[in-house]
């Protein structure tokens, strides 16, 4: 009887012990997801965050980089604030990630979100786009200096952008103006409902210039185009269709601006999980499928691991709050 019980016990106990041992070992060294990962795009389908989430999920699945699938979920609202409020409630959950970019810093600084980047776990920076300044092809402005001088002389000249005041496009041009010795708030920034809307208005001659994302603008440049680029905010010249466009620094304005994109996770995500995702995303950036997709979308890889990304975000917050307070838009 006793031996039987013991035997029985051991039959049960052995696998349990083995299982327990395995999982502790896994936690110590290698964590892997136990179910599919919710990958949140804090916006409607079709935008930048959504494209990042869907492209990453697709490449990871296509190249079989992970055992569990990445499920793209759209949580639109409040320029990201609705999704952030939702993720913030899920503290410690290693299966919840979201796409992020400068609004993660800007929206909280404008006082429109209870949560800011410090409430979440930075996972990795993935890639970046740059800001670009466009004028009509037949415009009198030949370079950045022409345009900035004209803006200095006549502050009523309008510069359109695709986002609200105090958001990416506005910061990009205000920061440049500031670097050129102007008051950041002196730029007559006209917010349009999107980069495409702003470019249409530039083609129609309703505004003087447009500040927007380089990736979005590249299709509008080149032979036969109605638009012309005066400069990009990168440190070095970009490739492809933008190789002819000089940087701001080349033209004597010491200013760069990154439209970075990355991934963050729920608050207090376990370190092992962060390490797993860091490696996974680094591996993903090396695949041909990713290469192909980024080339088509005009993305430039700019990987940073969790620690570097966290420090980068802190530094961005500092920089943006300076510009926002100059603009009188800081509400924190």
């Amino acid at each position, binding site marked *: 009887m006793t031996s039987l019980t013991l035997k029985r016990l051991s039959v049960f106990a052995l696998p349990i012990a083995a299982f327990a041992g395995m999982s502790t070992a896994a936690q110590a060294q290698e964590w892997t997801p136990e179910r599919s990962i919710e990958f949140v795009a804090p916006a409607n389908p079709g935008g930048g965050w959504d494209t990042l989430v869907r492209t990453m999920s697709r490449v990871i699945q296509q190249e079989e980089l992970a055992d569990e699938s990445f499920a793209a979920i759209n949580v639109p609202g409040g320029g990201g604030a609705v999704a952030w409020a939702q993720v913030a409630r899920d503290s410690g959950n290693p299966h919840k990630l979201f796409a992020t970019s400068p609004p993660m810093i800007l929206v909280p600084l404008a006082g429109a979100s209870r949560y800011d980047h410090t409430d979440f776990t930075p996972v990795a920076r993935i890639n970046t786009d740059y800001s670009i300044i466009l004028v009509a092809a037949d415009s009198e402005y030949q370079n950045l200096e022409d345009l900035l001088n004209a803006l200095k002389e006549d502050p009523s000249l309008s510069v359109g952008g695709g986002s609200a005041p105090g958001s990416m496009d506005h910061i990009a041009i205000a920061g440049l103006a500031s670097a050129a010795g102007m008051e950041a708030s002196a730029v007559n920034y006209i917010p349009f409902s999107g980069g*495409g809307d702003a470019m249409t208005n530039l083609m129609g001659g309703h505004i003087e210039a447009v500040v927007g994302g380089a990736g979005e603008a590249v299709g509008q440049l080149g032979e036969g185009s109605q638009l012309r680029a005066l400069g990009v905010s990168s440190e070095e010249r970009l490739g492809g269709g933008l190789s002819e466009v000089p940087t701001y620094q080349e033209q004597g304005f010491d200013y760069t601006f990154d439209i970075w994109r990355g991934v963050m996770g729920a608050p207090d995500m376990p370190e092992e999980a962060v390490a797993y995702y860091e490696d996974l995303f680094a591996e993903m950036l090396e695949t041909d499928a990713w290469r192909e997709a980024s080339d088509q979308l005009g993305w430039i890889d700019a990987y940073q691991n969790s620690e570097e990304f966290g420090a980068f975000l802190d530094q961005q917050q500092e920089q943006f709050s300076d510009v926002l307070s100059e603009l009188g838009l800081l509400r924190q």
Partner: protein
Amino acid sequence: MDAFNNLMYGFGIALEPINIAYVFAGVFAGTIIGMLPGLGPISALALMIPITFAMEPSSGLILMAGVYYGAIFGGSTSSILLNAPGVAGTVATSFDGYPMAKKGLAGKALAIAAYSSFVGGTVSVIFLMLVAPLLSKVAVSFGPSEYFALMVLGLTAVVSLSDKSLIKGLIAAVVGVIISIVGIDMQTGTERFTFGSVQLLDGIDFLVVALGIFALAEVFYMLLRGGGGKEAPRNAIGSLKLTRSEVKEIAGPVGRSSVLGFFTGVLPGAGATIGSFLGYSMEKRIAKDGDTFGQGNIKGVAAPEAANNAACTGSFVPLLTLGVPGSGTTAVLLGALLVMGVNPGPMMLTERPDVFWGVVASMYIGNIFLLVLNLPLIPLIAKILDLPKPLLLSLILIFCMIGVYGMSFSVFDLLLLLGFGLVGLGMRLFGFPAAPLILALILGNIMEESLRRALQISGGDWMTFIDKPISLGLLVVALLSLGLPLLKKRRKKIPPDVAV
């Protein structure tokens, strides 16, 4: 002749068996998506991007364009049968379509919608083919001042949409403008009427209001009036056939609205919804029996249906000739083209003629498919009206709730839907017309944004609206269309309505 050769080239692409299959799949999926409230073409197309990724760009765009105009085509079905607009572009169709269905003329209403959509779609493809490259100039000629004037012109329709009492119509319009303002103000980043709620930061979705005020309010109203023994039997679908005089009657409205709709669609940001409202209110004003609009006038179904399909095609002009999206839906299409490796831009017409002409040719085929697909379906779909009333009402209720929840996955939006249902019920009980509210909701936001943008560009100078010929012209037309009906009313010396 050049256009003809190009079109033949386009048909060569569109008639490849695989592309015919894609057109069919696209318009079929679009029809279904359009019929279901909530799941609009935008989200459907975004979900399709991964599927089209590996496709030939012309095939991918043929498929996705089919979903888009198929949805606008199919959206009229639920507008007419259930008073629940399937997509934003078909709200105006319910104004006369639903009263027709109530009178037992559902079959005829659906048939008129299908024929008008077909004509609107086909006429606009001809325009797209012949004048698209020229029209790119028109599309960019509209700046903030011009948009403001266009929106003012659109809002004058409130006068013709307030059937009984102008005061009540104006009150409804003001409420509509207020709802359109909710959320973060684009110009300053200030929150307006959000009461600290994160869910309201992005404003209130148009479809939540439309489904609440039309469909849900109708359900409440029927519940309130009990089993409804007095009402005409709803189970009659009626004949699908149009008499010769009816065809004659709608020919004019369909023709005019097709052209109007197309040009509205060409303007970035205007689109199918505004196009259908403009078509509807124009016909209501022109028609001799304009005062029977809203009670089941066949012209009131024909005009918006022709206009919204034409506008849908028109919105491809800025996308295909300039590479800028004219609407939320074409913005997703633009993204899809990028993913497929096509650079949408001014050079696309010369660099990738296969995409442009293939899509144009496929639209002819797609519109024929839609007509052939939809007509035989009408008796089947209209059977939904045979359901016993309790079942039908619960079905509408579930339909609306799934639609709204599927849009945002937000319970908050469901509560909003319920709230607007009650608002709609109150409006019906006290004789407030719903159409001006919806119109003002659509136009209010764009009107305010363009007004402030225009003034910001001009440095606060109001003359910007007078100095620009297009905006001046539109404002004069607005003034005329506002003044004439009032004068007419005064001349008739109608006694002021005391109580409604």
